[in-house]
């Protein structure tokens, strides 16, 4: 390409570069916004899941309530409170000690 041709193309190239730059700039800006919205959406979802986790923690704690466990153990299962002498500790010397 001759120097003259390059010279005639220069303004055109400048405009193309400027336009491309503006286009890329606008695109990045838009993309940034779009990502911001989806991030916000995901953040809300995360918050929702955190809340759900807390609700589950409460439910688990309620289910593990000692009184509830006691009632279930004695009424639904054939279990009863350990009576005196029922628990035996093995001392390892061939001796069992009633607790």
């Amino acid at each position: 390409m001759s120097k003259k041709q390059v010279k005639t193309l220069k303004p055109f190239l400048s405009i193309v570069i400027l336009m491309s730059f503006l286009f890329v700039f606008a695109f990045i800006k838009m993309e940034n916004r779009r990502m911001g919205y989806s991030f916000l959406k995901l953040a809300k979802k995360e918050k929702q899941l955190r809340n759900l986790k807390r609700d589950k923690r409460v439910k688990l704690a309620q289910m593990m309530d000692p009184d509830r466990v006691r009632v279930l153990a004695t009424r639904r299962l054939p279990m009863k409170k350990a009576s005196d002498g029922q628990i035996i500790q093995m001392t390892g010397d061939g001796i069992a000690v009633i607790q």
Partner: protein
Amino acid sequence: MLVRGAYLQLLPNPKLEKIKTRQFSKIVQLSSRRGDILDRSGQEMAISVTTYSLFADPKIIKDPYSTAKRLSRFFDIPFKSIYSKIKNKKRRFVWIQRRLDEKTYKKIQKWDIRGLAFKEEFSRVYPHTQLAAHTLGFVGNEQQGLSGLEREYQSVLSGDGKRIHVQRDARGRPLVEDGHIFAQTPEGSDIYLTIDKELQFWVEKELRQAVEKHQAKAAWAVVLNPENSEILSMASYPVFDANKGARSKGSKMRNKVIHDVYEVGSVMKAFTIAGALKHNVVEPNTKINTENGVFRIGKRKITEADSKHNFKELTVSEVLSYSSNVGTSKIALLMTDSVLYQTLQEFGFTEKTGVDLSGEGKGLLSKPPWRDHLTANISFGQGVAVTALQLANAYAAIANGGVLHQPYLIKEIRDIDKGEVIRTEKKAIRRVLSEGNAKLMKMMLSQVVAEGGSGYTARIDGFPVAGKTGTAQRVNPDGRGYLKGAYISNFVGFVPANDPQYVIYVAIDTPKNGYYATTVAAPVFRNIAHFALRKQGATPVYMSDGNIIKSSRETAEPKDIAVKKVNLNTWKAVAEPLQKVPSLKGLTLSEVLRTLHGQDVDLHIQGRGKVAKSQPGAGELLGKNRKLKLRLSE
């Protein structure tokens, strides 16, 4: 136009800046979530969850009548109360219903009624309702702590809210590059307690049973770790539901362990004797003339609580184990009033313990000089009033070898946002006894629980127990003297006496079927101590005929201990050993387990539902391997 555009865009213009800020900025207020309260092993005791509060903007509700009708039907509340709130078009904000769960929130959202909206709020939940309610306290409508730890640690639990300045778009949505600022709710610090949830439950259960059994007015108890005075359990009965908080009766909300100051009776004798040992006034085997149970001081008479205790002479150790009022009075008079006062002061009876709860009583004890009869009375726990926590803490000092510590409830505080953990260190207040004297006191207190001692009902198989009974008359709140027939039956002690792990104090207020601590409070102490040791997995240390079983496989008898010959296998199968298979057809699995409970049977189960077939069949003999196969079908 270009010049004007450049002028507006590039040159600073405060007026335009202000308009822009107003139009495109938004301040988002993020309220903080209250920190959780957890027990020593991290199990939830109080937790905050997100709820949704429904409000209305009456100005923009198109049809207040039908909206009120729908809401009234949905919430089952009178139509009038809702309609009166939303019919006034001049109002812009009225609460309809607060703290709804997510399901309800979603249902109402689907109605899509203009003018109804939600605000996220936190709600405090106490999953175990009544458990440790007096210690935890509760919060008010605006999540402010109103009592207990919730109030004491309000600033720690509540945390700081956040105000975030963000840009918004034309539709008012925040333009954020970091959406996390909305997801990360600022949180208050979490508090880990020294309380053991399981032990707390057991203590509360025992107190409830004791109140029911003895038709008592109330009961309270505290369990401490003697090494550092951390509070493992603190309970009062009657209880209240922390979720209902302020709607509960005031009398039920009283934490009697720290708020109530009362005369405790003979449990104070231990401190009189400890003081006498410390100041070399007596030794454990010093003989005291106990005047056949009646001791005259001027016009007044000091008698023994039990009329059968008309001893002529007792050693100091026996004075404690028989709980002799006369003996203790004489020791106190030998000590002088100022030394007794100093001893009680050193054990912490004239000051608050400093536990991390407000409203603590500091005890009532007048300064000497005292008349002789008052010195005598104070020596066995009359004319001196203390809190349950003060008393348990003073016993903890004897149990740990003589050092008084500050009791505490908070194990650690965790700030999740900052990643900080603040742990509570044990805080020694002062040495109140030498190690030698503390050891002597432990031995003497063990004698109280030995056969013939006043606290023998507190004994536990396998563990030496040290403690002291006390049956105090209730002071008349409306005048002088004591209430007739009203007693506070209490017991305080520690287990195992040789290496104390738990200091336990129990008080039963105005029991009706018997009032002596031996029959009322000591058995409760025993049950609590037994559970605590079992839970801890402590190895029994006390060996006697009663609590030793020898294996049948052992041929040689140990020479140094007495052995009761019981085949270990008999413990494996408590019931008559099963030879033939019983008829199990049609039984559920739990019924099968109940039938075979205690039997040495190797059970194999297939399927679900009820027993359809067994192998060996019903009536057939069990094999040598004692295998029983059950096929279940629904």
